[in-house]
């Protein structure tokens, strides 16, 4: 029972990580159809931001709190730069975007190596986030996992509300649904694109801060995450956030179950097989906007 609950929570927390790293992509890939392979390096930028801030702010808790908004801005700015310099020229060629941003990710990785050195760096987590909360019945819940889950849920809620309620969100949705009409209606589509990219990349920065609690902080940390993140969005279906949310948690639980019943390697392969099978059933992902104008 303890193990079962532990595994369930593990699955949910894997899902939360997947969600957090995929959320930005759900915006840039899902809404704008831009395949940004450098998304993983934006995550890395968020993690390094935490590291740099800790050099000046000594309290681990404070530095983490400060890092969240700062990393959002740092990664978001990198995203805007990328959008303005390269991606803008490539909206008509999504596959080429994939290759170009892959090149960008290589450059950013090497840059990180030259600036911060090849070895991983360490950040100090607040003591609050290195322990766990004991529940009745011998169950425990790790606090860093809980923090990430909360952060992921908060990000989803904030993003959904922003898209639904703010004028900016309405503009983003207008551009996604009918770019030409939006342009004709007086929306500066180029600026909306930049803003969307800023938010999407900023979310990667947030994910980077959160991941310092879980994993390594090094030049290649992003590459390990990017494929998983894309698979979440592909399976979730583009155009809507709820697909990515559901799929992230579903894949997390599937992965945790597979890991428990078989081995980690086999579980990874199983998840891949499940994804291919799922796409046989719903090639456009879990949710899609079905309208004619988008075709």
């Amino acid at each position, binding site marked *: 029972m303890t193990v079962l609950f532990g595994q369930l929570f593990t699955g949910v927390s894997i899902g939360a990580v997947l969600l957090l790293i995929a959320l930005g992509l759900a915006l840039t890939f899902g809404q704008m159809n831009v395949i940004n392979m450098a998304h993983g390096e934006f995550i890395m930028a968020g993690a390094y931001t935490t590291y740099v801030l800790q050099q000046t702010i000594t309290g681990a808790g404070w530095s983490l709190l400060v890092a969240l908004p700062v990393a959002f801005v740092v990664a978001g700015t990198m995203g805007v730069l990328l959008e303005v310099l390269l991606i803008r020229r490539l909206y*008509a*060629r*999504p596959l080429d975007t994939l290759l170009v941003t892959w090149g960008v990710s290589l450059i950013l990785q090497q840059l990180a190596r030259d600036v911060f050195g090849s070895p991983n760096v360490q950040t100090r987590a607040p003591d609050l986030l290195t322990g766990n909360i004991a529940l009745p019945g011998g169950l425990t819940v790790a606090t860093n996992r809980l923090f990430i889950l909360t952060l992921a849920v908060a990000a989803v809620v904030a993003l959904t509300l922003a898209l639904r309620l703010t004028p900016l969100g309405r503009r983003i949705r207008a551009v996604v649904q009918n770019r030409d009409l939006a342009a004709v209606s007086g929306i500066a589509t180029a600026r909306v694109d930049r803003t969307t990219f800023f938010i999407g990349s900023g979310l990667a920065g947030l994910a980077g801060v959160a991941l310092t609690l879980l994993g390594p902080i090094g030049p290649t940390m992003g590459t390990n995450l990017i*494929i998983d993140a894309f698979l979440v969005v592909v399976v979730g279906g583009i155009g809507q956030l709820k697909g990515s949310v559901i799929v992230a948690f579903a894949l997390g639980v599937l992965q945790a179950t597979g890991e428990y019943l078989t081995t980690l390697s086999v579980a990874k392969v199983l998840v891949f097989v499940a994804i291919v099978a799922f796409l046989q059933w719903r090639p456009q992902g879990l949710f899609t906007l079905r309208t004619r104008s*988008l075709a």
Partner: protein
Amino acid sequence: MSTVTAPTGRTPDPAAGGRRRNLLPGAGPARAAAGFALGAALLFAVAPLALSDFRLSLLAKYLCLAMVAIGIGIAWGRGGMLTLGQGVFFGLGGYAMAMHLKLADAGPGELPDFMQLYGQLDELPWWWRPFASPWFALPATVLLPMAVAFGLGSLVFRRKVRGAYFAILSQALAMAMVILLVGQQGTTGGTNGLTDIQGFFGYALTDPVNQRMVYFVIAGTLLALLLLARQLIQSRYGELLVAVRDGEERVRFLGYDPASVKLVAYVVAAGMAGLAGALFVPAVGIISPAMIGIVPSIEFVIGVAVGGRATLLGPVLGAVAVAWAKTALSERFPGGWTYLQGLMFVLVVAFLPGGLAALVGLGRQRGDDPDRRRWWRRRRRQVPAGVGTTVPVEGAGTPEATDGAGLAGARTGVTA
């Protein structure tokens, strides 16, 4: 550069000469033959004389990568399928060959060295046994990758998984394949892969003379694959493939099943990668998961992009050039190579989608096609009013604009 798509033997049309797809003026069979002879002379006479044993063995390795590139040129350049998992097929071919050579090294009834060390197996696993026979192993180097490509391809293409979705799936396939291979330490050699291969059908690979022999086999195979690719590109099928790339839905309305058309190109590309992997093994003496994962798979693509994805020779020259640059540069500036590799992706793909082949053709074609000169100024959504971009598709949100990717790339590439 030889002709790429010029259909021969049809009504000549001097009036439309400037617009013709005939890529080099008068690039007919005679010119192609001359180019072929020149290539053969370079590979068979000049290179062996001019290069040291070490450099020649490097060239052999590059030529193997070039074979993969030919396949990618067909699947991606002509067919619009960006396969980021070509390493899988390269690996399947390589492992099939290496398994046979390991068994041959071990001798009849014996286990390969690594199995005794790490697997503690008493007998050969069942799936290794057929590879003892060259009559099984050799065809398997090509047929096995083709079969896997057929299986995966018929699943995803029929369900209209394409564009970025296909690229990401193919990448995930490479990841899954590596994990699978690494996990089976005792029977696949794990991360080490299959190494220390001594002989190649009875000939000792330690002998430099035999290494030359391997080089000649590789060079000959490359030329044969080029001929095959040329035939494929110039055939009716080759035209159909371009049509599918530029307007998959339109082709469907003409009564074709685009899934089968794409499947053929994907399977052929897989077969070429498999053959390349098989020949890579005697040339380099090792095959391991490190050569089939995500990173090597995408490195295959960069050579193709640099050379010119939609041309016949572009991918070959691009692959060799990139591999050579990697060796040369990493000998001097190890960290710098990563920067350069990244820059190549960015600059070539973003600003020269036709690759170097387009650069070569630029001078000649200037002024012909106003669209071409302005490609870099083309802003978003100004996809050439082509097919595909306007055809509604079942289930909205299909990355239809991907077809535009092919268009833009091909516009410059095809004419070089």
